[in-house]
């Protein structure tokens, strides 16, 4: 199982702040996880589209498209940060 968390605009539009999911066999990195979530359709497909500047963190570290994801990880999806 992987813990997915969503913040700010993404949390609101997806209507979800966290969920636990079992990853399919072929989902092993940020790119494939994003693709798999977009497959849920509707807002998922729109919000996680490449043009949307979605940032991903894996286990609290900013991740790239190629960052690996394994069982037990926490993966966060959020817009570019705007603190400070």
């Amino acid at each position, binding site marked *: 199982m992987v813990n997915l*968390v969503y*913040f*700010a*605009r993404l949390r609101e539009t997806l209507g979800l702040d966290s969920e636990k999911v079992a990853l399919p066999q072929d989902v092993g990195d940020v790119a494939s996880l994003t693709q798999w979530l977009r497959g849920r359709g509707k807002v998922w497909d729109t919000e996680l589209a490449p043009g949307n*500047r979605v940032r991903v*963190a894996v286990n*609290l*570290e*900013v991740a790239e498209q190629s960052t690996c994801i394994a069982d037990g990880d*926490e993966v*966060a999806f*959020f*817009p*570019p*940060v*705007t*603190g*400070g």
Partner: protein
Amino acid sequence: MAMKWRFFRRLLEVKLTIRVQTEDFDIAAEVLKLRRGNPKIGAVACFIGLVRDINENATVAEMTLEHYPAMTEKALTDIVEQAKSRWDIMDVSLVHRVGTLKPMDQIVLVVVASSHRGAAFAACEFIVDYLKTRAPFWKKEKTDKGMRWVEARDSDDDAAQRWH
């Protein structure tokens, strides 16, 4: 989000205080805590970020700050460690508020103490630039045009880039 969350850590010889809180902070008290009892400190640089009443052409009535608590400690500690590896600084204090704020409210405080002013200024500005592009905080504004999430500005990325 009425939490108050804080941690202290010693990074080699740097004393680091990071707090995320809904309460306001007192600049003078934070500076005093940092420098108390240390006569090696010759320079303190501070930055205070405030809520403005206008942003991107809309009047801001209030703003709500959300963060990713588990990641915040890690992100802020990394930022300060980077500053520490670049400049000869002694102590760093960083306070960031979350929750609902109004125009003129204080949002963030960064205080850096050093023997000399050059290091204090550079590290303080570096931390603020990185905080704005790396730390998981998000602002949502209530404006005369409705509620909206603040968009990240490219100028913030540019400011962080120049430290590479």
